C-alpha cells in the first residue's frame, strides 16, 4: 500500500510532530515500503483467531489503597524546562 503526502500530513498532526515538505516526502516513501512489507499479514486467514493482548497470562494483582506520598515535588519540578514555583509553565492557552 502506498502512503501519500496527505496521509503523512494527517499522521504528523495526530502524532504532534511537525514535518517540512522534504521530510514528508521521505516519510511517504519509507512508510510506503514498510507498509508493503507489513501487508504480508493479509496472506493469513485469522477470522477465528483470538488476538493475543499479553503473553503474561496473569490477572492484575490488587494492592491496598494506601497513600504512599513522598515529598518529591521539588525533585519533579527540577526536571521541567520551565517552571514557576510549584507549577509547570507552558505557552499561554487561554486568552
Amino acid at each position, binding site marked *: 500500500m502506498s*502512503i501519500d503526502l496527505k496521509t*503523512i500530513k494527517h*499522521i504528523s498532526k495526530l502524532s504532534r510532530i511537525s514535518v517540512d515538505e522534504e521530510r514528508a516526502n521521505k516519510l511517504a516513501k519509507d512508510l510506503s515500503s514498510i507498509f508493503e512489507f507489513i501487508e504480508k*499479514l493479509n496472506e493469513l486467514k485469522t477470522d477465528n483467531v483470538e488476538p493475543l493482548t499479553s*503473553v*503474561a497470562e496473569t490477572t492484575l494483582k490488587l494492592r491496598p489503597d494506601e497513600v504512599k506520598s513522598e515529598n518529591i515535588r521539588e*525533585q519533579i519540578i527540577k526536571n521541567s*524546562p520551565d517552571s514557576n514555583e510549584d507549577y509547570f509553565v507552558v*505557552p499561554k492557552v487561554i486568552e
Partner: protein
Amino acid sequence: MTDITSLSLTSLVDKVKKKELSSEEITKSFIERSEKSKKLNTYITDNFENALNKAKQFDEKPNLDLKLPGIPIAVKDLFCTKDVKTTAGSKILNNFIPPYESTVTQNMWNEGAILLGKLNCDEFAMGSSNETSFFGNVQNPIDENLVPGGSSGGSASALAAHLTPITIGTDTGGSIRQPASFTGTVGLKPTYGSCSRYGIVAFASSLDQAGPMSQNVKDCALLHEIISSYDSKDSTSIDFKRNEYSKELNNNIKGKKIGIPKEYRVDGMPEEIEELWKKGIEYVKDCGAEIIDISLPHTNYALPTYYIVAPAEASSNLARYDGVKYGFRADGINLIDMYEKTRSEGFGSEVQRRIMIGTYVLSSGYYDAYYLKAQKVRKLIKSDFDEAYKNVDAILTPSTPSSAFKIGEKTNDPISMYLNDIFTVPVNLAGLPGISIPAGHDKKGYPLGLQLIGKAFDEQNLLNIAYAMEEKIGFENKISDWWMK
C-alpha cells in the same frame, strides 16, 4: 592479557571475596581502560568519580556476603538511575535526571555493585546498529567502523572491549542478542515478566525485557539471578519461583531434546551462517542431547507483526514527551506549536518514523486492519512455539542472518535494517527467553552467534544448555585494542 579488566565477573567476585583484589583496584582499572577507549564512544555519561568514591567506601567496610561485592558495572542508558542523567540515547531526554532508580539496577546495587556509567544505545532502543543514537555511532571493538549491533550497542561494545566486567541491556526485538552476537559476547533476553520494567524507559511495553550481557554463560547466570525479581511496581511482573541460576548451573544436558526449526533457513542467508548452525547441531549432539526437526510455520510473519505491534506501543509510550514536565523543549508560538516543534526537533528520524507508523496503525478506521490483525498473528506465532515445546526442551537457531556490518551500510534502507532481527523477533512476540552465545567466526574474523530459545520461565534449562555448548565451542574473542593505537 592478564590485567584486571580481562577477568570475568565470576573471577573478580572470587578475588574480592578472597581479598586478593579491592573494589578500588578493580574500579580504577575499568575507569583507566574506559578513559583510553573514548574512540569507541560507548559511554554517554560516566560516573567515574562517584564510582571511585563508592569503591573506597566499600573497601572500608566490605560486605563479602554480597553477590557483586564492590563490582563496578556500566549499564545501558535506558535504565533510570537516581541522580544520574538518563537519556535513552535521545536529544529529548538530553537533560533528564531521574529522581528514582529502576528496579533492575537497584537489585544490582543491593548486591554491592557500583554504577560505572551509562552506555550508548539506539534512540529509545529503536535500531539494530546503534546508529540512531543522538550521541553518535558506537564502534565495535572487533574492527574499526563496524557497528556493534543494537539497540544495546554501547553495552555490547563496552563489554567486549573490557570496559565493564558485565552489563545489562534491554531487548524488544533482539536488542540484547543481536549486539551480543556481533561482538562475541553472551546475551540473555529473559521470559517476559521475569525482570521488572519499572524505571526502564519504555519502548514497546508488551515486548520489552531487560537482561544480562556477559563474557560467558556463568557470569550471565549470576547476573540474571540478581536482576530477575517479582516487582509490584510493574503490573506485568510475574510472581514465579526463581532459581539460583548460577548455583544450579549444570552442563549435563544428556537426553535433552533440541528443536531445529526449518523455517529459520531463510533466502539469501550466507553459507557461513548455515555452516555455523550445522556446527551448533553437532555440538549439541556431542553433549548427548537429541536433535529433533520442528516447524514454526508462522516465522515469516513475525517481522511484519512486530512492525505493527512495536511502533503502535511506542507511539503511545512516547506521547509523554511533550516538552512540559521534563526533557527538551523547543519554543513555539502556542502550546500545540510548542509540542510539534519539541517532538520534531527532539526525536531523531527513526523514532519519528516509528511513532508515525504506530499512530497510523492505531488511527480511526485502521485499527482492525493492522493492530488487531497483528495481535491475531502474534497468537499464531506463540501457538507455533507452544506446539513445538510439546516435543522439545529448547530450540537452536542462528542469532542473526549475518555478522556485524559496516557503519552506514544499512542506514538508507529501513527494511534491510529491520531484517537483522528476523531470528530474534519471534521470541519477543511469544514472550519466551532466548540467549545468544558466541559460536564461531566468519571469513572476515567477525564473531557469529547461535541462539537458544527456551520455554517460558525455563531460564535454568536454557542456561544449562548454553553452558554445555559453550564448553564444546571453546570460543575466543579476538580483540586487538586497535582503538588505542
